[in-house]
């Protein structure tokens, strides 16, 4: 009963923050509420026992998406973009009805479900021994449904190619993002000096531990990306120009290694088949490649297209 009260309180908070994020009058506060929303969700995931998702939500949902949105708001402010006029009342009422109708339908749909659940947990459990890893989520991500993950890593690459393709033609070949000028004795710079070694350690650890415990390439890669972003924002490290060969190789390394493993399997008789005895090293290899590419890609996604020409 106490448990339920906590659940309901947490859910009420999440809904409240979501409402504030969507309806908030000022854009910046909306973004802040969105980040808080992500953190609360992360708590919810922990509470539900989904620690991998909790990590991912905090790092990707709240963290990186938050940074991306904050940066966008400040950029729009500098461009002097104004808020458009609010929707007319009629539109708001009909939209609210539509949205409410959808929620209602979903509640009904949930109500008609079998209460005992019909998930795949037992099947995963039964096959975990052959997957090469002990964390069932990692087993699903990098073995049972590795194909999804392969495409997902490609999706990140697609987004990066897309973001770069939106560069100003004149800036092609320049460095991504705006140049940051942090004061050398400022807080950011201090953080920028202190945090990276720690972040690097944590990031690598999370990647490495992912095979057996919560964590993995995506969560770890995100933390590594955050480290790099911090360095860039503190003005301590410039991102390399987007035409640099090494940068581009880093970006395709993860999906590339993944694809190579998949292709090798296909030649040998099964697309993306990881033989049980080699599964663990193969997964670690893929994770290492992915973590590198994810870190680089995510950071570059947040930095955006080059804003200045090549030097």
């Amino acid at each position: 009963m106490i448990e339920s009260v906590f659940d309901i309180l947490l859910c009420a908070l999440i809904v409240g923050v979501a409402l504030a994020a969507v309806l908030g009058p000022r854009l910046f506060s909306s973004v802040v509420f969105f980040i808080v929303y992500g953190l609360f969700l992360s708590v919810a995931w922990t509470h539900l026992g989904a620690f991998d998702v909790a990590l991912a939500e905090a790092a990707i949902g709240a963290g990186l998406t938050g940074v991306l949105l904050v940066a966008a708001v400040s950029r729009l402010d500098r461009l002097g973009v104004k808020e458009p006029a609010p929707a007319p009342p009629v539109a708001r009422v009909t939209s609210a009805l539509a949205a409410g109708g959808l929620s209602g339908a979903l509640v009904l749909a949930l109500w008609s479900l079998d209460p005992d659940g019909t998930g795949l947990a037992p099947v995963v459990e039964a096959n975990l021994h052959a997957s090469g890893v002990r964390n069932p989520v990692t087993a699903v991500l990098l073995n049972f449904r590795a194909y999804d993950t392969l495409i997902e890593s490609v999706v990140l690459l697609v987004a990066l190619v897309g973001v770069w393709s939106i560069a100003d033609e004149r800036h092609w070949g320049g460095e991504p993002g705006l140049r940051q000028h942090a004061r050398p004795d400022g807080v950011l710079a201090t953080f920028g000096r202190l945090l990276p070694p720690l972040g690097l350690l944590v990031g690598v650890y999370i990647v490495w531990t992912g095979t057996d415990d919560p964590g993995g390439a995506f969560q770890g890669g995100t933390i590594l990306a955050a480290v790099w972003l911090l360095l860039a924002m503190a003005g301590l490290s410039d991102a390399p120009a987007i035409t640099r060969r090494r940068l581009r190789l880093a970006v395709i390394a993860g999906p590339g290694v993944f694809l190579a493993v998949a292709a090798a399997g296909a030649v040998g008789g099964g697309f993306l088949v990881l033989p049980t005895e080699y599964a663990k090293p193969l997964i670690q290899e893929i994770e290492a490649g992915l973590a590198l590419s994810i870190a680089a890609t995510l950071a570059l996604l947040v930095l955006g297209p080059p804003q200045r020409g090549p030097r």
Partner: protein
Amino acid sequence: MIAMAPVFCIIVPLAAAFASVVRPLPRPLVGLAILVVLGLTGMTVAEVWQQGAHRIPVGGWQAPLGIALVVDGLSGALLATTALVMTAVLLAALPEFADRDRETRKGWAFWPLAFLVWAALNAAFLSGDLFNIYVSLEFLTLATLALVSLEETAEALEAAMRYALFALFGSLAYLLGVVLLYAAHGTLDIALLSQADLQGTNSIVAAALITTGLAAKTALFPFHAWLPPAHAGAPAPASAMLSGLVPKAPFFVLIRFWFDVAPDLPGEAALQFIGTLGAAAIVYGSVLAMRQTQLKRLVAYSTVAQLGYLFLIFPLAGGDGLSQVWSAGAWTGATFHAVSHALAKAAMFLAAGLVVHAAGHDRVSAMNGLTQSMPMTAFAFGLASVTIMGLPPSGGFVAKYLLLTAAFSSGQFIWAAVIVAGGVLAAGYVFRPLSRTFFHGHVQTVAVPRRQQAVPLTLAALALLLGIVSSAPYAFLQTGRPIAAEEGLE
């Protein structure tokens, strides 16, 4: 190894895309990549032809734990169509996007994006897993989004954002439906779900969400608003893939879902409703196409209209109709239409691209006098129009005939009337630019080599050929269908 050909149809374009991210591929390598994927697609088709439909369990894991790829007549046909259109698109893009000395933004970005679109389409057409389809469709959406915005004009960027809104919303609606199905049945595999008993509130809400989401991504009326600016604003080779191929992916998923997963779920009213939207798309898209002053817009609105035909498959072959003899005809008719429209529309956009390039502007008047200055391109546009109008001898005609037969056999005269009226309306918009090709004095000032003009002509001729040599593709499409049309029409 041959059995793995479909898988390599995804792997090889991905590898080509990765390589082109690092540095643009030299022409011979682009050609090699095209040839390899063409060959692999051919092997896939041959394999389906000989062995029938089959599944490839990815990673060796059987469903429900793993993901299965499904290779059957429909996916094979769409793979082949994709290969043909992409080959033409890449060849047509070489003059515009191959950088000579210095790397440029467009010259760099186009190649990985094009190969990624190819990979994404193949992935979507092969997938037998509902969540994997979600990832594949998102993959496709993001790659095409970047192509839409490639011109970087305010219109193109706005078109891309509008496209993003519809497409991302569509993906989420689809995903939501998938989540509900998983919650109820504990599997994402299409074959396993088809054995599950889909009924009740949960299944209906899920099916409605999946249909809405995919319809938004296919630009079914009234979700069509994003399509014309997006397709018209992209560079012509990109438009060709966007209009010819990309909407076919969500439509393909829709067919997979309705005909494989939930054939008995929809009520008559729902089927008629979707059919009505399709009919509205045909009429509305055609009327707007007639009113356009810009060539590529006209062609793009034609896509809105043509996609409407696809949705007539639901009233004609869905629900109870699935057990009827005419269902197979309607099903094949709609899929035939998808294939022939892909070839013809891509040809039309590539031809339009050459015309716009040669005339220096995008108004319909760019076609003036085309039969004198660029007869091959004029011919390509004309041949593609024949398919778009659904006139013989073209694949469009066979498709239309099959749909019509199904409409009459099932006593649904109204859809028959819509189908024939749609042909007349199509004539209304394609003959506007075509008439201008006969004007005296031409306005095309930039010379376009015959080599380039041959590309759209070949594609358009293929669309026509589909209407003459249609029995083999017809039989091929049936491969692996639960209820095949072995006896043909009637």
